[in-house]
């Protein structure tokens, strides 16, 4: 699915809760706080919100509950989307499609979770979630059953195909931690060196502890409005230029299966890049800041290659020479990403892109940021939106 937006929709408000390991609050409470915060930031009256979207992996609250809690007088459209990294930022694309088609005027998009203190995505402490049926009947019986274990298989292929090393993965973690040190919201701000990364324990070889994102409690929300309404609101409108949600062939029989893909080293980005740039009317050279979905360090390398920032196999060298630093060719995951800020399933990255385009990022501001990319990763399928002020 590809869609060209022509600046008909814009992100008008953003909101988030505190990010923590134990919120001590209900997921609904978190969702409502982030939602209200985003609506207040937009300058809209709560009653003007007539659409609500979310995505989850059996770990969140339904949009109806959020709409009810916010006291929305009417609900024009709602959808609870089953998915995680693979579909995350596509919710912004879908909200933009809703407002530009006239189905809704102002759409609230949220992701809320007690991802550390409640339902842990990796399944630690939740034996009952492992059921070897569907696609998992071919993987889980062999003990291959959590996201770090799955993605390590693809990371290994990247190493085999391109000569990528564990140090190459580690540099992503180190750079993002340096960004997080400038972000007061980040859960991990202590300096991280490449030696620290190499000394961290092996979880699923080739992935070490610091190759793997955090687990977090918290919520993020954005409001997407029609562009003609956005121009009368207090914030600088962050327009949606275009977006994509898709992949190549053989995406598996599961929600996010990937073992049927022909070449496991490269990801969905290579399959959808042409669609994305053609829909958006810009190219990778035009992008100033990017939120590249970083469930794992490896994911950042393969997406940067797939979207054409560099050629396949060249991300490691580019990153080592400063390519994704704050003042590099493109500033990547300036909030610290999910490796260091928090794991709110990609939506915290969208908010960081909005803050960058508004110029609100303080001493981690990318000078003159005008065009941003936010992506979501699911190996064979994924999503991306291009945003611009």
């Amino acid at each position, binding site marked *: 699915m590809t869609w060209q937006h022509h600046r008909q929709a814009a992100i008008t408000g953003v909101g988030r809760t505190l990010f923590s390991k134990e919120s001590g609050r209900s997921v609904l409470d978190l969702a409502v706080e982030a939602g209200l915060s985003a609506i207040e930031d937009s300058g809209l009256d709560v009653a003007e919100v007539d659409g609500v979207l979310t995505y989850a992996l059996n770990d969140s609250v339904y949009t109806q509950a959020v709409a009810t809690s916010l006291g929305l007088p009417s609900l024009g459209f709602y959808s609870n989307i089953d998915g995680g990294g693979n579909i995350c930022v596509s919710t912004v694309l879908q909200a933009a499609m809703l407002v530009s088609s006239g189905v809704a005027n102002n759409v609230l998009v949220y992701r809320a979770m007690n991802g550390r203190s409640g339902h842990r995505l990796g399944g630690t402490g939740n034996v009952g979630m492992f059921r070897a049926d569907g696609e998992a009947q071919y993987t889980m019986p062999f*003990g*291959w059953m959590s996201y770090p*274990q799955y993605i390590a298989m693809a990371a290994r292929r990247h190493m*085999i195909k391109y000569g990528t090393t564990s140090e190459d993965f580690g540099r992503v973690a180190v750079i993002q931690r340096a960004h997080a040190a400038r972000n007061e919201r980040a859960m991990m701000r202590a300096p991280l060196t490449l030696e620290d990364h190499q000394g961290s324990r092996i979880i699923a*070889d080739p992935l070490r502890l610091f190759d793997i994102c955090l687990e977090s409690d918290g919520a993020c929300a954005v409001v997407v409005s029609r562009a003609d309404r956005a121009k009368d609101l207090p914030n600088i409108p962050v327009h949606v230029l275009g977006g994509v949600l898709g992949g190549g062939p053989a995406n598996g029989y599961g929600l996010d299966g990937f073992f049927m893909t022909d070449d496991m080293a490269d990801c969905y980005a290579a399959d959808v890049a042409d669609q994305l740039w053609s829909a958006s009317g810009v190219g990778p050279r035009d992008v100033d800041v990017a939120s590249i979905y970083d469930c794992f360090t490896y994911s950042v390398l393969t997406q940067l290659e797939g979207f054409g920032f560099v050629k396949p196999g060249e991300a490691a060298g580019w990153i080592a020479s400063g390519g994704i630093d704050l003042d590099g060719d493109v500033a990547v995951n300036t909030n610290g990403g999910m490796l260091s800020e928090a794991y709110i399933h990609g939506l915290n990255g969208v908010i960081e892109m909005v803050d960058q385009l508004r110029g609100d990022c303080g001493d981690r501001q990318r000078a003159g940021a005008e065009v941003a990319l936010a992506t979501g990763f699911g190996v064979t399928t994924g999503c991306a939106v291009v945003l611009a002020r």
Partner: protein
Amino acid sequence: MSLRPIPDQDSQQFWDACKAHRLVAQTCRRCERPQFPPGPRCRSCRADEFTWSRLPETATLYSWVVIHHAVIDEFRREAPYVAAMVDVVPGVRMPTKLVGCSDVDSLFAGMQLTVEFVDDPAGFTLHNYRPVAEERSLAG
């Protein structure tokens, strides 16, 4: 003990064959392409009639993960262990577990492997793979 695979109508014959220590692939009657995992239709030509063809015992290593941090007790006792993807024939690449590889640093893509069925006391059979010993590969 392992985690029991839960077959469905599309996969029952695959798991039944494993129990009889035969590795099979769902193979299209029309275009004769094998596919894994089995599905309701041939993914190449969309035909819905299949045979179950016997696969060779050998395979080559495509990728692998040395799992140090297992997430459930059944596998915690075993860690570290090696999950792998192996190429059996064109069109058939399978997740599996590698056994008999004490030195994980010696694993490499393309390494020759042979299937080894393991009967679980709970009444199912899994298809693990084992590196082919040097002398055996020389002997052909």
